[in-house]
């Protein structure tokens, strides 16, 4: 009990009052104006489908993996997309290890809804064998540091990871062409996912006094604010999802203003993501020239060829 008391982060009365009075004159504690987004930096890991996003002090890592699974019965020819969130206790003392908390579930749901409802990722192209085998895409989001506005940062991390992810190519073989052959990356170039558009989540914070609204709240502001709304839009200005979890009521005119701001911000962020992905892809292409495929090296060694020489994974699927 005592150690938990000492480990939680607290907001003082002074900070609460200062944040509110400063906002009345249009000043935020990190020097931004109310409609300004924080600095965003996107980095990629060594492997395909991993991203690291830093939004101000917030730090999120995204990781995409895939697996061949049986599809859901009602969608026999569609692959699946699932989002998993992991809140590390190191990011914020209030996150507890083990079972995902309420905020972790909500974060996952918002991102999942934005991607799924707008059909951003083409799931039909993930079908290998209708009704039998499809690719299941799994997005893991790790919160490494909580500086406020985890939803937006996690959403960008998920998109950046999905854009750089490549699944191994597979083809059907065998006598009745019901056998699935997976080709290792050295043999056939892995395939990227088909992403139609990028649904960008933009979060707004509302303060009780005289309808003050800020974009991209920090964790200090999150502790003070009375209400929150996340709008998910793409660069064309299409609204994909809106999440308004309780709190202060908001006027319709304010929501319209939020959506206008969000669509402008979504355009900026889309451009940043695309630039970062483009830079990563050119770097990958230039480094590939020097790459020595592992399978060729193994075949060169020779003797143990039967065990490892042919890396084709074959899966027998008979009815």
């Amino acid at each position, binding site marked *: 009990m005592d150690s938990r008391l000492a480990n939680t982060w*607290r907001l003082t009365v002074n900070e609460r009052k200062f944040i509110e009075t400063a906002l009345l004159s249009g000043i*935020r504690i990190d020097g931004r104006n109310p409609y300004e987004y924080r600095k965003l930096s996107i980095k990629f890991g060594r492997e395909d489908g991993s991203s690291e996003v830093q939004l101000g002090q917030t730090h999120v890592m995204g990781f995409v993996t895939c697996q061949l699974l049986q599809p859901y019965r009602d969608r026999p020819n569609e692959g699946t997309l699932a989002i998993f969130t992991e809140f590390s206790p190191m990011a914020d003392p209030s996150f507890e290890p083990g079972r995902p908390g309420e905020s972790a579930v909500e974060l996952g749901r918002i991102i999942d809804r934005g991607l799924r409802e707008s059909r951003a990722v083409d799931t039909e192209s993930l079908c290998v064998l209708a009704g039998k085998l499809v690719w299941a895409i799994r997005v893991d989001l790790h919160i490494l540091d909580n500086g406020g506005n985890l939803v937006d940062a996690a959403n960008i991390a998920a998109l950046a990871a999905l854009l750089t992810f490549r699944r191994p190519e597979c083809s059907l073989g065998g006598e009745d062409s019901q056998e699935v052959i997976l080709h290792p990356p050295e043999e056939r170039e892995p395939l990227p996912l088909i992403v139609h558009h990028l649904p960008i989540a933009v979060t707004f914070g509302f303060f009780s006094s005289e309808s003050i609204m800020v974009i991209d709240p920090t964790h200090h502001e999150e502790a003070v604010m009375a209400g929150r709304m996340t709008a998910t839009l793409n660069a064309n200005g299409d609204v994909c999802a809106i999440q308004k979890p309780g709190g202060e009521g908001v006027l319709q005119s304010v929501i319209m203003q939020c959506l206008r701001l969000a669509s402008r911000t979504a355009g900026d962020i889309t451009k940043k993501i695309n630039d970062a992905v483009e830079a990563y892809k050119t770097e990958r292409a230039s480094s590939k020239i020097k790459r020595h495929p592992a399978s060729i090296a193994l075949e060169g060694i020779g003797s143990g060829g039967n065990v490892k020489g042919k890396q084709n994974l074959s899966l027998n699927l008979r009815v």
Partner: protein
Amino acid sequence: MKAGKLQFSKPNKYWVESSQKRYVPCAEDTVLGIVVDCKADNFIVDIKGPATAFLPVLAFEGGTRRNIPKFVVGALIYVRVVKANPGMNPELSCIDASGKAAEFGLLKDGFMFETSTGLSRMLRSSPMCPVLEELGKQLSFEIAVGLNGRVWLNADSPSTVVVVSNAIMNSESLSEVQQKIMVEKLLQRIK
């Protein structure tokens, strides 16, 4: 022993100065604490240490059972660590060694932000660190630095508080000359 920067002062004094996010209480440190709970005999205060600290209700200047000060939960206070024994909750006091209130007590208004312990020690160094010196030449503000890595600031306008707090947070890894340049640039921009 903790890792840190090796410091040297003439003629022959060497020490390792560490910097952490977490504070380890030490007797005679002055710190900024947040009131967590009010009990009959003690205020429970968070001083960023591994355990919460106790501030006896009588540890105020002329403190008796009759005039116990009232603190709301979340109040920010400037206090002195009196006892910091391992395995015990640290004990705080709002009076100095000679029984005077000195500067201790409740901090009203203003803004509090957290830094590393190394930065807060730098802010309290003498001669005065260049960030505060340069900022003080142009702006007027009130500051209280606790050795536990908490800094309280107050000024007439919120914009001054924001500028000063961000300048201090940015000066964490800068050398003295860099600090001066950073502050000069900042002040030119806001003019």
